[in-house]
Every structure is written in structure tokens, then in C-alpha cells.
């Protein structure tokens, strides 16, 4: 029983996210939620479940599968979607490559990270989605810190950071023309620690690779990458066994692991609270291309 009318920071963030999700469900015709099986999208899906209970989640979930994802995470994705009874749309980068829509990068730094944008935009057009929930947070990256909660995308899926719609109070402008869409970020004001604290509080299940496990890895550019068939390893990049966990979960070719002994959510929180390096800085090779790598990809329509 509350008598002081105080809410914890997680309660306030949860209430804000649920308001955002209901606003989308009320004002758009064909929304969808981007679900990768990563921790942020797991929290987002849990919030969607809460927002519409006891009814089912009134929109499908979509995953852009690079073909280079962790099998543990794909299993989790499929199981979670089945449990909730939501329709799962999988947009495949491999199919985009096979159809000649994009060209596979080659060489040691080859990644399908950037190709995802084309697959994503094609799927949005094909499915005629008019709003897409993404799990991006403003504390992740400096370009994301500038983005609106309801972020307008033109008919080419492009973001124009200099011409964003002002966003006041809890009033969101949802007006678009046909062919345009809005990316919606219900976790905008959550931090990495908030996400972990919420996972702990709600007892949310997460894929096993978020906990410490032994794995064959090699080091490249200061990042520990998993041994996997999609990366060509140089002679100067020997494999070794390490006890690691993942702090973020993306494509195997650009997501690094961190050395860790954390077996429980509480232990992960302790490690995250003590770390002096950002999650993307520690584990994402895709942000290292340039100072504005994220802004540039976002302009093209990236997540």
C-alpha cells in the first residue's frame, strides 16, 4: 500500500513506456515490435505484454536475421514468440543477398551489419508497417541521445537529425503519409542498469549467453569475438578458451564478449555497475568505423 505517492525510478520508466506503447496501438494501423532476443527487446516485449493485459499484444514482432546470429538467441526468440502467441516476422539478410538486393561484404572486416538496413526497409514496405518499436536507449550512444521517442522516417526510411519534430510533455505527433513510418523507442530514458534492474525485478528470462560460460574466442581490435564460421581469422588471431558473457547481443561478427564470472542477474548488475567502459564501446565493432558511425547508419534507416 502506497501512502506517500512515490514511485521508484523503475515504476516511472515502466509507466512512461506503457503509455508510449498504448499510444502507438491507438494511433497506428500496422505497428510491429522489433524483437531480436536481446535484453532490451526482451524488456520491451515484457512491457508490451503488461500494456495490453489481459488482451494479447495487438501487433506482430519482427526480427531482422543477419544469418550470423547466435543460435541460443534464435531459439529463445522463437520460444518467446510462441509463448506469447504473437506473429513472428523474420526478415532475412541472406534472402536479400540471394535476391541481389545487397552485396555481401568481403575481407577480414566483412559484416552484414550495414546490409540489415536494406532488409529492414524492404520488410517494412512489404508488410506495410507504419510504426516500429525499437529497443534503442539514449544512454547507449551520442547520436541516439539526440533522437526523439517518436522518430519520423521518410519514404526512404531516412532519419533527418536536424529536422526532428519537437516533443513536449507526453504528447507525441503520430501523423504520417502513406509510405512513411515512425520508429518508436519506448526505452529512450532507460539506462543499461535500469534494464538489468528491471530484468531482475520482473524475473525475466534471458538467453543463456548473457551469463558467464566458457567459449572459444579470439581478440581483434581489443574485442573478444566468438569463434564462428562467419569470420575469417588471421594467423595473428589465435583462438583461446575464456569464461565470458555477452553484454550486448547482436550479430556474431561484430558483437564482442566480456570476461566475466557472473552466473546470476544480481552478479551481472554488480559487474555492470562497476564497469568503466560503455557497453557499445566494449562490445560493438560496428560503432568503431568512425566518430559518427551510428548517426550515419541511422540516417540511412538503421535501427
Amino acid at each position, binding site marked *: *500500500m*502506497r501512502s*506517500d*505517492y*512515490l*514511485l*521508484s*525510478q523503475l*515504476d*516511472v*520508466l*515502466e*509507466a*512512461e513506456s*506503457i*503509455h508510449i506503447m*498504448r*499510444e502507438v*496501438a*491507438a494511433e497506428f494501423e500496422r505497428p510491429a515490435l522489433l524483437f531480436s532476443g536481446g535484453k532490451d527487446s526482451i524488456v520491451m516485449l515484457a512491457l508490451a505484454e*503488461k*500494456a*495490453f*493485459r*489481459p*488482451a*494479447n499484444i495487438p501487433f506482430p514482432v519482427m526480427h531482422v536475421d543477419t544469418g550470423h546470429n547466435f543460435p541460443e538467441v534464435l531459439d529463445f526468440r522463437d520460444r518467446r514468440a510462441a509463448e506469447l502467441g504473437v506473429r513472428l516476422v523474420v526478415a532475412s539478410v541472406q534472402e536479400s543477398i540471394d535476391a541481389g538486393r545487397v552485396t555481401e561484404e568481403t575481407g577480414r572486416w566483412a559484416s552484414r551489419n550495414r546490409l540489415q538496413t536494406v532488409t529492414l526497409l524492404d520488410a517494412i514496405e512489404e508488410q506495410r508497417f507504419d510504426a516500429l518499436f525499437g529497443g534503442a536507449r*539514449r*544512454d547507449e*550512444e*551520442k*547520436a*541516439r*541521445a*539526440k533522437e526523439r521517442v517518436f522518430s519520423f522516417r521518410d519514404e526512404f526510411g531516412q532519419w533527418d*537529425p*536536424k529536422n*526532428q*519534430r*519537437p*516533443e*513536449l*510533455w*507526453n*504528447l507525441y*505527433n503520430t*501523423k504520417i*503519409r502513406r509510405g512513411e513510418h515512425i520508429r518508436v523507442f519506448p526505452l*529512450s*530514458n532507460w*539506462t543499461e542498469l*535500469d534494464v538489468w534492474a528491471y530484468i531482475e525485478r520482473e524475473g525475466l528470462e534471458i538467453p543463456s549467453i548473457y551469463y558467464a560460460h566458457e567459449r572459444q574466442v579470439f581478440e581483434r581490435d581489443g574485442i573478444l569475438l566468438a569463434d564462428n564460421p562467419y569470420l575469417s581469422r588471421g594467423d595473428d588471431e589465435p583462438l583461446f578458451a575464456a569464461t565470458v558473457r555477452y553484454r550486448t547481443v547482436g550479430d556474431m561478427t561484430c558483437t564482442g564478449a566480456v570476461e566475466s564470472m557472473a552466473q546470476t542477474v544480481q552478479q551481472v548488475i554488480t559487474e555492470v555497475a562497476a564497469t*568503466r*567502459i*560503455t557497453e557499445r*564501446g566494449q562490445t560493438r565493432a560496428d560503432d568503431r568505423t568512425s*566518430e*559518427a558511425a551510428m*548517426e*550515419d547508419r541511422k540516417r540511412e534507416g538503421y535501427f
Partner: protein
Amino acid sequence: MDILRFATAGSVDDGKSTLIGRLLFDSKAIFEDQLAAVERTSRDRGEEVTNLALLTDGLRAEREQGITIDVAYRYFATPRRKFIIADTPGHIQYTRNMVTGASTADLAIILVDARNGLTEQSRRHAFLATLLRVPHLVLAVNKMDLVGFDQQVYEQICDDFCGFAAKLEIGDLTFIPISALLGDNVVERSANMPWYDGPSLLHHLEHLHIASDRNLIDVRFPVQYVIRPHASSDPELHDYRGYAGQVAGGVLKPGDEVLHLPSGFTTRIHAIEMAGQPVSEAFSPMSVTLLLDDDVDISRGDLICRPNNRPSAAQDIEGMVCWMTADRPLTPGARLIVKHTTRTVKGRVTDLHYRIDVNTLHRDETATQLGLNEIGRARMRLTQPVFADPYSRNRLTGGMILIDEATNSTVGTLVITEAR
């Protein structure tokens, strides 16, 4: 742990980035790789001191031009509180960004350079913060180190500001002398200013009482979404009809008699649910679902309140408009889409009473239009009523955004002074 949202107003010259950098750094919210990246960029650009503004200026254009264009949100936490900073650019051409950042802020920090004293800019920031009813204001007199930590300088600035503030409706005002660069009175009390007996800035942010800033008196529940589990296999849910929304004011409890607008029908709250679980009360900013005793035809855009305390069902709106587009000016006769709580209607500007000079507060009654970043008092006539309160009574039922019918852009905002 609760959340305090604050906006910082000021320009790079006032030391705003240094102040934010220090708050983030001292609360360990700046990570080593972020700092390393900023140091590298500063060095590459031939700057002698690490430019902490690069931490918040996230866009390519901002970094190239060395200016802050848009609101950036930054996060840090201490054991007592989580903080969300809306870092807003200070220059007059970004008035709309400050208005945006201030709309949700519990507190605004206005930075003043002790060497220059109050400027037009500081007066404008104070005016905008009070226009948006930011409940708490801090005037941080910065660069005290550059005036020899002189008490007289500080007190003169405080006196000047009080003279100006008398013309504004400021709820709570605190003055703090600081040196963002050296850290005096930012996190720790300064040893250089023994004459100052107030708290450090961070101490003030951590201990400020904000729970009472919400309206817990006037029950306002804009209906956002109707939950009907159509295809449910559970027969108990066949008649389930939940009204979902975020509480905008007051405290709701099961058993309370409530009134529905626009119908005027009264009923009682049968139950309140949060994520499918019953809760004993709901208040702002909780997102909940109401179940009512009677079947009433209720849809999105309606409002639930108490029978003896209702907002105006208003088609004539008076208020202060901040115009946010350069595409076209606001002129009497302009047709706009209006979004107010969960209700979207159309409207026409019938009068522009005056334009206010945001630096001097002078009212220009001869004005015939409002351009980008200009603020004025206007009247609108709406095609349908909205359920509105004066903004001074409730920020959520007293604010509206204005959308261009042709471009779909958000072109302005209106804070309601009178609704009929």
C-alpha cells in the same frame, strides 16, 4: 530511488558543458572509452583543453560547427536519485528546443557567467522556464573563480535576478555560486566561499522535494486505449472492457464515484489494474487500466474525472503559443491540428493578442504574426471540445501541440491560460 528530470539552459560560454561534464564525471556516468574518444577528438582538432562539450554534442553538424543544435538527454544516478538531464542549447535561435526540454522538467538550472552578470539570455531562460511552469529554478552563478570568489559580485547578480523575477511567477528559486571548472559547490561545498552557507548543486538536486509538484487533487484520467480481449478463450474475459491510460492528475481508488466526459454519465470505479493485477490506488504518472461498474460508451479521447471537479469542455482556448517552424508564420486564421491529452481535433487561430519580447518581456500588441521561436498570446477555436485545465493547474491537461495539416510537422505548442 526516484527520478528528477532537469533542464540546463545556457551556452558553452557560460560553462554549461563543463558543468554537465563535471556532474557526469563525478557521478561516474562518463566512461573511459567516452572520455578517451573526446580527448582524441579534442587533440586532433588542436584544442588545448579536453572539450567536454563533445560528450553531449552527438550530431556530426554539432561537432563540426561547435554548437549545440538540439536537446540531448543525459543520464546519471547517485545512491539517492536517478537524474535525466535535458541539455538544451542557450541561443535564441533554439528557443523551441529549450521549451521542449523544459516541458517535462522538474527543475531548470540557469547558468550565469559571474563576470557578465545577468544577460538577455539569462532573462529569456528564466521566462521560458516559468512559461513552461518548471516548478524549481536554480540560478547557478558560474565562474566564481574568475571574480575572486567575491560575495559582493554574487549578491549583486542575485539582487538583479530577484528584481527581474518579480515579474514572473516563479515557484521555488535557489541561488548557488559555483565554479564548474574547479568543482566549487558542484558536488562538494566550496572551501573558497565560506560566506555561502547553502547546499552544493548536487546536494540540492538530490534532496529537493518534488513529490508535491504533481497535481494529486484534481482527478484527470484521459482515456488512451480501450482494452477488449476479443478472441480470448477465457469466458470470464468476454465482457472485459478496460479503459487504459496514464493518470494526469488526482488519486483514483476502487469504489470512487467518477464522471465521464463528454457524456456526463456518472458511475463508480470497479477496479484498477496495473498490468493485469489489481492495485489499490492510481496517481500520476502511473499507466493503469480502469474497470467501471456500469457499461458506458467510452472511447479514446474521453476523460474520467470526479463529478464535483471537472475540467472545462472547451472549444475556445486562450494561451501562450511558442511557434516552432520557419516554414510559415502563425497568423490569425491559420488552421491547425491540435493534440491535447489523447484527443486530436482541428482548430483555427482566431486572434493574436500580442507577441512577447522574450528578452525584455515587452508585449507588442501591434504584432500580426509569430515567426520561428517567437512567443505570443493567442486564441483558438476548436472543432470539438477538449477537456482542459489552465496549464498553471495541470501541465498535462493544460498543454497542447499544434500540427501542420499539410506537412504533418509539429509547428508549435500552446499552454492554456483560459479554456471555455
